């Protein structure tokens, strides 16, 4: 008979383990940023600024959560920014017509929400069909829909903002619960549910399985095409929701809304620790990654640095995140 002796983790090994945890590092980065911006200008550490950060965060995290699912499957969705723009424009037209017919404002907003999500689902389905049926690689398929729907934003609006919707739209974006507005709270609940769905459900396990090894996943009986279709529709739906939020925030459907949103979404996912090769990624990482991006935006304005520096900071964060992934793989015995 042999006795196995397990050593209790020492404080040093525990600290080493924590430093290998990307989410823990991201929390440290976030705390460091908040501290830095607050020391440079104490106004940063106020409810009003946190409200600004969270208001910017909502559309970014919605796009990024969908992108996380897609990237975990080993794909990419470049169309999320265009979905935001097009769904915002279509919902603005719908709500303008309903307002012109004196439909109750709450009903108008509810229908507007459904329209935006439906538009997002529709574009997600187009992406999925291009990828799974036409067998176009995700990068090219979603690059095509990025261009097509950004163009349609201009064609349908003639280039201008679409307004004259319900007056109560902007009021919904006013913070009511600390720094959170009502849509913000809904998004937090939604993110938690989706996070649990990814990490605890069969759907989530299939998502990771396809990204890790799609052939093995198919051999194990997973309907890969059907699953990828659901994932791209989910990504479209969440971007449609982001488009609806930007409509509420501006009280207009702007054809330029969501411009370059795909870059923010992908940056948030990569900073959050997901691997573009697929099979790796966490919702908590994406939430923190998107929060860091929007904190940088507001922080630079508050301390009086040109917001163009955001691109430099984001580039450094992406490089650090990818380097840290490589370092972890190396310490596990992989190639650096």
């Amino acid at each position: 008979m042999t006795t196995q002796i397990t050593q209790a983790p020492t404080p040093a090994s525990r600290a080493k383990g924590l430093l290998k945890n990307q989410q823990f590092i991201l929390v440290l980065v976030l705390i460091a940023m908040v501290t830095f911006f607050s020391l440079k200008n104490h106004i940063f550490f106020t409810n009003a600024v946190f409200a600004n950060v969270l208001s910017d965060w909502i559309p970014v995290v919605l796009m990024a959560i969908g992108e996380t699912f897609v990237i975990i499957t080993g794909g990419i969705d470049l169309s999320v920014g265009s979905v935001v723009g097009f769904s915002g424009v279509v919902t603005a037209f719908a709500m303008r017509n309903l307002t012109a017919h004196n439909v109750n404002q709450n009903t108008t907003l509810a229908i507007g929400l459904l329209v935006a999500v439906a538009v997002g689902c529709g574009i997600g389905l187009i992406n999925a069909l291009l990828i799974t049926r036409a067998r176009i690689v995700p990068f090219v398929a979603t690059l095509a829909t990025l261009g097509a729907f950004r163009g349609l934003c201009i064609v349908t609006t003639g280039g201008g903002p679409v307004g004259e919707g319900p007056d109560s739209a902007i009021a919904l974006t006013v913070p009511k619960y600390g720094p959170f507005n009502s849509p913000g709270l809904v998004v937090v609940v939604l993110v938690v549910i989706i996070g649990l769905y990814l990490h605890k459900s069969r759907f989530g396990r299939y998502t990771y399985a396809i990204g890790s090894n799609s052939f093995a996943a198919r051999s194990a009986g997973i309907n890969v095409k059907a699953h990828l279709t659901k994932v791209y529709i989910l990504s479209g739906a969440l971007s449609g929701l982001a488009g609806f939020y930007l409509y509420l925030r501006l009280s207009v459907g702007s054809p330029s809304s969501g411009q370059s949103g795909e870059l923010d979404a992908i940056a948030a996912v990569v900073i959050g620790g997901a691997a573009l090769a697929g099979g790796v990624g966490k919702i908590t990482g994406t939430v923190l990654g998107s929060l860091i991006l929007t904190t940088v935006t507001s922080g630079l304005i508050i301390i009086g640095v040109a917001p163009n520096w955001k691109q430099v900071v984001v580039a450094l964060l992406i490089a650090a995140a990818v380097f840290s992934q490589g370092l972890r793989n190396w310490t596990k015995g992989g190639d650096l």
Partner: protein
Amino acid sequence: MSQNRDGRTPGVTTFEREIMTSSIKRRSLAAVAIGASAVLAAAVVPATTHAANKLTIAFVMGAESDPFFQAMKVGAIAEAKVKNVNLVWQGDPSVYSPATQIPIADAVLAQKPDGLVLIPTDPTALQATVTKAVALKIPVVNVDTHVNDLTNVISFITGDNADGGSKAADAIAKAIKYSSSKQFQVAVGLTSATATTNVARLEGFKAQIAAKYPNITIVDVAYSQSQPAVANTNVSNWLTKYPKLNGIFAIDGTNADGAAAAIQAKGLVGKVALVGYDAYKKNVDLIAKRVITALIAQDPAQEAKLAIDTLVDYIGGKTTGIKKNVVIPNFAIDIYTHASDKKKYTYVQK
């Protein structure tokens, strides 16, 4: 075809893999080719279908998503019809940038139009486009903004941007009840640091403040890149950073959109004066709601009309009446403006 992280499909031979890869590449290339062909066809049609004796004038503007250019397009189309001109209207859908404008201008020049109306998004970067046009013997008119060296540009037609900035300073001073016994803070939202319209408006604004309102301090400036959401983020943060902010000068329509939404969301309607530029209907309506204090209106349709008329005259040999610089006056709209003037100066949109 799904792949693992090595980029390979397990259980598939090299030969099969090559066939699949080649198939995917073919399909992807086909999709790209179809998309590109459709876009090129759409872009080329206007220039290739014109009658042999009809002039073709290309209009390369800044960003289609800016309603200022929509109003200009309405004027250009109307005048092209009157003058029996084939109009090629081109520009990036939404990005106001030399990086996106230069390839568009090059593609337009390749079609060899009879004349070019260019709204340069950057005075230095677009200088080469003017040089290329002149080398091809294509006369160039600048509208709204101009290149650094106007020697080879037959006419520059613009609203008086410096005067617009000056009028904006007057409107803000009036709204905040300026007095020499108090200090005031204002911020300025721009679209780009280099667009000559933005620069001229800002300079006009600063000059008027220095001359007449020395107790007003410009505490911040930021850039929106023609995106209302970016302008909204900038202004939301200003309203927090500067609790004593008295006014905002939104230097164009997209900045006014974003600033108006931020002021409403922060519950500061009537407390922070907002003077915008460009009389889009939606923003003119916000004057009645006291969200926007005043708007400086230009006449983009008139600018387009004059640009086409100038080129038609020049190509037709009537060069004597052409002025090198044409400045169209601005008009400030506020709550006291008569309804007929509001209607006259509100931009016609699609």
